[in-house]
């Protein structure tokens, strides 16, 4: 990752932002939601919070604009430059600008959200049937007022759910008319207009009056782009007019005729030869969420990275997964540190998939309190002791940073201050426990640094400070000093053991690792190797390393970095939320 020269960053954590205007491509609600989610990407891994202001000065001012839009860094029409942002600071610094010549979507093509009607703002469902006919786009059929509408389920006749599609006849954006619809015809500078116009403006935005005379009342708003509106050309925002005539031929769909670049276009009147009004047909568009998350990275102090998979790589690419790469997380945490508090918990029940577990429901005594038998029947692998008495510390979700995690008996075990929990057999149900460590493995101290089960012998290694133990069945061996493994006296603790092949493992301690023969309990002679040489992109200060479901996990604070068998970090997340499946 890279930061800007001078490591520009905000000197406070409660960042404010204001959305100055909206793109006609999406409804304001969808735009606001995309921005809020983009900020949440960064607040999830930092102590930063983001608050939207409706007016007044804000740290980050967000603006849509085209071409030269006031800052000396003009946009370039469709495609090419999508957006830009300024590093943290006063004034224009920290602001984010989006090129409104782009087709802004959520990355997968046009999503038409409705207003009013009976669908409470749901998106159109295309195709839908109405009076037995199939519709692929918004229609004004069935209405006398010409308002475009759509069904939000496949069958309007059956469900009756509908809403109005974006249209200047339904609402306007920004302006000074509080979203009132256009009034046609209206008079502007003595001329009558019966549709939205760009006259009187240099930025190309389409507008209308919301009374019959702008000259008299001066109330106006910007026209939202209708569904299936074209981009570029000389009619941006207008819908295609099918069928249209071009070079004497009739076209009922977008075409690449007449062009050498293969781009699809359509006319926005029924006769191109006569009116010459045209634009490019809408495509999948660019995800406002992803581009905003990238630009907000700049607004927080991150420069472009050379890691192609990272969000802060300069080129746009669409992804449905979490947008942050380990490189992004390291970069932003370099500036602001990691998140220090868990996400706020809603007061209502947790989402389905993890049943609520009030304290009174906790098992407190046998027989119900006995943990289920281990899957292998082996007496020592999983816990067999009695559950600990309930207390606030019993909730695995209240633990921010675990002492150690380890896959034992095919189930992930979570260790913290003398307690342990274990994941459900397939890792899909709620975590079970806690149990007292002293009940299960009595020889161990309450605070562990690492644990490891040798898949070959099923012996379990436990590490704490400068000592380690080995449990073979119910028999505890040790403790021994770490020097017995061949580690130098400077090694204060072991942070993890990961099996590489039968009988061999990697032993981690801080920024170094050793190759270890498990049977002889000895590491290779020679200097330890730096972790970063074998595992790029993982935190050097990892305090726990373990293998789970075939991937190596490096834990630092409440986060984990997951490394695939091919050595790539493919995920960074919260231990509690992602691995312990806390709500």
């Amino acid at each position, binding site marked *: 990752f890279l930061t*800007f*020269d001078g490591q520009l960053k905000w000197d406070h954590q409660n960042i404010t932002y204001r959305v100055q205007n909206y793109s006609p491509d999406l409804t304001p609600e969808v735009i606001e939601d995309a921005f809020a989610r983009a900020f949440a990407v960064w607040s999830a891994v930092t102590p930063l919070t983001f608050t939207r202001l409706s007016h007044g000065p804000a740290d980050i001012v967000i603006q849509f604009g085209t071409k030269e839009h006031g800052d000396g*860094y003009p*946009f*370039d*029409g*469709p*495609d*090419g*430059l*999508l*957006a*830009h*942002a300024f590093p943290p600071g006063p004034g224009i610094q920290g602001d984010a600008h989006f*090129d409104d010549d782009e087709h802004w979507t959520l990355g997968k093509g046009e999503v038409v959200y409705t207003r009013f009607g009976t669908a409470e703002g749901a998106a159109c469902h295309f195709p839908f049937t109405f009076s037995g006919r199939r519709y692929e786009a918004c229609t004004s059929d069935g209405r006398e007022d010409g308002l475009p509408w759509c069904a939000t389920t496949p069958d309007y006749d059956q469900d009756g759910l509908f809403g109005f599609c974006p249209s200047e006849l339904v609402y306007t954006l920004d302006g000074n008319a509080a979203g009132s619809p256009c009034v046609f015809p209206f008079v502007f500078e003595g001329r009558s207009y019966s549709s939205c116009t760009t006259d009187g403006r240099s930025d190309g935005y389409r507008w209308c009056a919301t009374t019959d005379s702008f000259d008299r009342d001066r109330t106006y708003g910007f026209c939202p782009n209708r569904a299936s509106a074209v981009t*570029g*050309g*000389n009619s941006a925002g207008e819908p295609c007019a099918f069928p249209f005539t071009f*070079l004497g031929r009739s076209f009922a769909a977008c075409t690449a*005729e*007449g*062009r*050498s*670049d293969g*781009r699809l*276009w359509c006319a926005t009147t029924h006769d191109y030869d006569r009116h*010459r009004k*045209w634009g490019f047909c809408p495509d999948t568009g*660019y995800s406002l969420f992803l*581009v905003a998350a*990238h*630009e907000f990275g*700049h607004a927080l102090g991150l*420069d*472009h990275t*050379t*890691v*192609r998979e990272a969000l802060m*790589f*300069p*080129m*746009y690419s669409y992804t449905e997964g979490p947008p942050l790469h380990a490189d992004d997380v390291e970069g932003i945490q370099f500036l602001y540190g990691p998140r220090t508090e868990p996400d706020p918990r809603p007061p209502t029940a947790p989402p389905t998939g993890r049943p609520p577990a009030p304290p009174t429901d906790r098992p407190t005594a046998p027989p119900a309190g006995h943990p289920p038998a281990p899957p292998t029947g082996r007496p020592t692998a999983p816990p067999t002791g009695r559950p600990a008495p309930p207390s606030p510390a019993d909730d695995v979700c209240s633990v921010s940073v675990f002492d150690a995690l380890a896959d034992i008996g095919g189930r992930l075990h979570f260790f913290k201050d003398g307690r342990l929990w274990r994941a459900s057999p397939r890792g899909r149900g709620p975590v079970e426990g806690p149990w007292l460590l002293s009940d299960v493995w009595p020889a161990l101290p309450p605070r562990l640094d690492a644990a490891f089960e040798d898949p070959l012998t099923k012996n379990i290694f436990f590490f704490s400070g400068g000592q380690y133990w080995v449990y073979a069945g119910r028999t505890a061996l040790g403790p021994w000093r770490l020097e017995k493994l061949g580690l130098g006296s400077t090694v204060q603790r072991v942070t993890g053991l990961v099996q590489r092949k039968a009988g061999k493992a990697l032993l981690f301690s801080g920024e170094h690792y050793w190759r270890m023969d498990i049977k002889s309990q000895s590491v290779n002679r020679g200097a330890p190797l730096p972790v970063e040489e074998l595992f790029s992109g993982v935190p050097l200060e990892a305090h726990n390393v373990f293998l789970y479901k075939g991937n190596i996990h490096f834990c630092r604070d409440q986060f984990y970095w997951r490394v695939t068998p091919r050595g790539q970090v493919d995920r960074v997340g919260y231990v509690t939320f992602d691995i312990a499946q806390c709500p």
Partner: protein
Amino acid sequence: APRGGPGPTLVLFPGDQSRNRTDRELAEEYLVRFGYRLPGEMQDGGPGQAMGPALRRLQKQLALPETGELDPATVAAIKAPRCGVPDLGN
């Protein structure tokens, strides 16, 4: 081989911003815009060999093979949609 009739009719669309520019013209503009080259460098040595070091910087930054040439991968990269913040410099 087909002799072919008249080719497809190409039309000059009003307001079409997609001017026909050569890949080299696009690359030169890209190198300056995103900080790989200063505008003054454009004249140094003519438009040819002087692009090599700047192209290498670009290719390194964009995780492309560092050929120093305006190869297809580099041309595709400079035509791809992207953020307007310069990659190098302020």
